[in-house]
């Protein structure tokens, strides 16, 4: 088990180096000059231009910029934004918000998927099964920004049940609406997985044995069917969590949530190389970590799986 974790972590090293290099290269190759963009329609004087270029190492060739950046990165210095803030500080401020949003969304997604999937599986081919399928497919195929705008317009503005944006108040109740919207856009896959495994599990020997022993359905369903059907749903939801962790850019933008996705988007627009790369580096680390955790979860949920 320990060896497995160590091996997975070692595998992550080239992944992190490779992604930072790629991202740095892509930001570097973005057309246009971020310094000129800072001045709008005005052209900065050559001296001002040179001073700014030197400050952000933009006058150096790509490989030198990357080297300088990686050197700083390993000494714990994530660089500074154009407004002079430490990128580490920005991350420390925005990551908890995104983490909270992702945790809330995944909790809703998981509960919805398990409950609906369980009943759909138990009533295979019946009306309930078909209705959840149709609704799930609709929610899955509608682009997320449409869901966001509809929810924002009706729930928040028209009916006044929630605040249309989050802003400074990142409390549970204020983030409820965006979290539910995210959950709605994600739950279908998990729900269908749940339904499929429930159907499969119900025909297993141990379920038939349980019924044969005379156990009532209220004991067989939760203990023998539900528990054994959870494995694929847990892993799917955990993978979704990894995706959300790296920022739901569109949702965060529409609901004005001060999270990772929103900040990253603005940094990309402004061409702030160091900010973008630092954010992406941390995101890659988070994603890799969550994936390792997901793999370990398999072993916890299914005793048949062992890692050596």
């Amino acid at each position: 088990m320990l060896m497995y974790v160590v091996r997975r972590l070692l595998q992550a090293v080239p992944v992190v180096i490779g992604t930072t290099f790629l991202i740095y290269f892509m930001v570097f190759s973005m057309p246009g000059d971020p310094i000129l963009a800072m001045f709008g329609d005005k052209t900065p004087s050559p001296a001002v231009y040179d001073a700014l270029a030197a400050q952000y190492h933009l006058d150096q060739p790509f490989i030198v910029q990357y080297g300088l950046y990686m050197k700083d990165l390993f000494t714990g210095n994530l660089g500074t934004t154009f407004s002079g803030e430490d990128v580490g500080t920005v991350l420390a401020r925005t990551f908890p918000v995104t983490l909270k949003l992702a945790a809330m969304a995944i909790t809703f997604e998981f509960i919805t998927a398990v409950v609906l999937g369980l009943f759909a599986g138990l009533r295979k081919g019946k009306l309930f099964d078909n209705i959840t399928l149709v609704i799930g497919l609709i929610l899955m195929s509608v682009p997320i920004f449409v869901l966001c705008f509809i929810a924002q317009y009706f729930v928040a503005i028209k009916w006044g049940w929630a605040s249309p944006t989050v802003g400074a108040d990142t409390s549970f109740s204020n983030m409820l609406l965006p979290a539910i919207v995210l959950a709605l856009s994600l739950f279908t896959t998990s729900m269908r997985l749940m339904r499929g495994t429930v159907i499969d599990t119900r025909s297993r020997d141990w379920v038939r044995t349980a019924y044969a022993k005379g156990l009532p359905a209220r004991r067989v369903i939760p203990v023998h069917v539900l528990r054994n059907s959870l494995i694929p749903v847990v892993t799917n939801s955990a993978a979704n969590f990894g995706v959300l962790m790296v920022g739901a850019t569109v949702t965060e933008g529409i609901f004005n949530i001060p999270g990772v996705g929103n900040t990253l988007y603005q940094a990309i627009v402004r061409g702030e190389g160091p900010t973008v790369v630092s954010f992406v580096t941390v995101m890659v680390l988070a994603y890799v970590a969550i994936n390792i955790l997901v793999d370990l979860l398999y072993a916890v949920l299914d005793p048949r799986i062992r890692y050596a």
Partner: protein
Amino acid sequence: MKFSKSVIGGAALASASALVLVGCSPEGSESDSTATAGDSASTGAAIIKTNGSEPQNPLIPVATNETGGGKIIDALFAGLVYYDATGAAHNEVAESIETDDSQTFTVTLKDGWTFTDGTPVTASSFVDAWNWGADPANSATALNSYFFEQIEGFDGYNSEEGASNPEMSGLKVIDDSTFTITLAAPNAEFPLALGYSAFYPLPESFFADPEAFGKAPVGNGIYTLASADDWKHDVQIDLSVNDSYAGEREVMNDGLSIVFYASQDAAYADLLAGNVDVIDGIPDANLATFGDDLGERAVNQPAAIFQSFTIPQNLEHFSGEEGNLRRQALSMAINRDEITNVIFQDTRTPASDFTSPVIDGWSDSIPGSEVLEYNPEKAVELWAEADAISPWSGTFSIGYNSDGGHQTWVEAVTNSIENTLGIDASGLPYATFADFRTDVTNRTITGAFRTGWQADYPSLENFLGPIYYTGAGSNDGDYSSEEFDTLVDEGKTASTPEEAIEKFQQAQEVLFTDLPAIPLWYSNVTGGYADTVENVQFDWHSVPLFYEITKK
């Protein structure tokens, strides 16, 4: 120039949302906003909430060149003069600004002004601040240093790297409340510029540690940042009323909260729900409906923003006699009324000169301005005349950045040209604003390109000199006209404002003949306010006069 994304077109996130929100405009937003109005008012204090964006630079006046930080800086500091809603300048910290020759100005300060840290505002507060901004050693921070280039002894651009020259010879402190400004060349309009943020004073504490100051600025303005914690980065900044403010502008509320939004859509949603009181930007998707949504609380008025497209002087077929004919033909081939109405829902005002209607001295009847009227017959005639000199070939293109919502109007303009003149015309999109500006700055763009200008201070000269004067910083088309340069110089040295206005209008007559840029329209400021507030007035610079706003 302070630039904002909506003006210069960094990122209007609106395109996609158009589909959704246009379809569902509220029938009764009056009742909607009252539903949640109680929440914000429940604290008792009349705090005005408005929209903004996270400052992109430290909060130092001379370092702030974009609207996100500019809005905060203007609330925190008071300069020698301030501008009222109409753009007229009034003395604020200055008791008087006097000159005999439009070159040397004697500034006398009023008594009783202090910074929020208790130190007095003296002549040195201004002189030291300006010298710091003009010091070449600070040029990476002082993005607005070009404002000092008129002052004698400015060498912020021309020094050896690392060299420092902390004093401009044109600034002399006489005593604590008097100093003189000597300009490199006479400019009667110079006092008008003194209300711009680059000219704000700075307290002594700034010079000890500019970096710390940029995080917790100490000002002398109407509002103050009571603690650095009130600036919640990427979220909002809470400003409280500055009790030591000594100016004549009366504050009618208890504070100002600027909420940072990544998109205008979110700000607009908050306005409809009553979560913000005033916003100064309407998302493109809601331009058609915001008048109905907000009723008389919708704001749509011309602003000090001039939009045009520039045809470089060296572009083939566009120089000399032939060029003038073609430029005029193009201008007359554009149906500005229809485009501003159909595409912009009347949130642009068709241009009738090279400045803006909010500026004193603006006129819609400058001789030569007929070329701005849609006149297809005349356009065809002029184009044919030009063809007689040298036949036209190729495509006429207008370069633009496609991340700023410019595509629709560029297509409309090129269609209008194509249909009228029967030539090939098309837009030339660039992926990003940065990409676009790089080609414009390096003169590698192959055709005409969109240009916009937002005035820094309310003066006709500010729309002309920086853009069309020979060799000026933003003269992207490399226009050069001796006649125009002379008239601008004469306007700047005129002894009375009336005379100056006359000269600047004559200078525009030259522009109407040469058309270095084809005027298109003035951007309007679009905004609105909730029914929780009253006395909302947008100033010449498209920003609400926050101090006047009262909460119901």
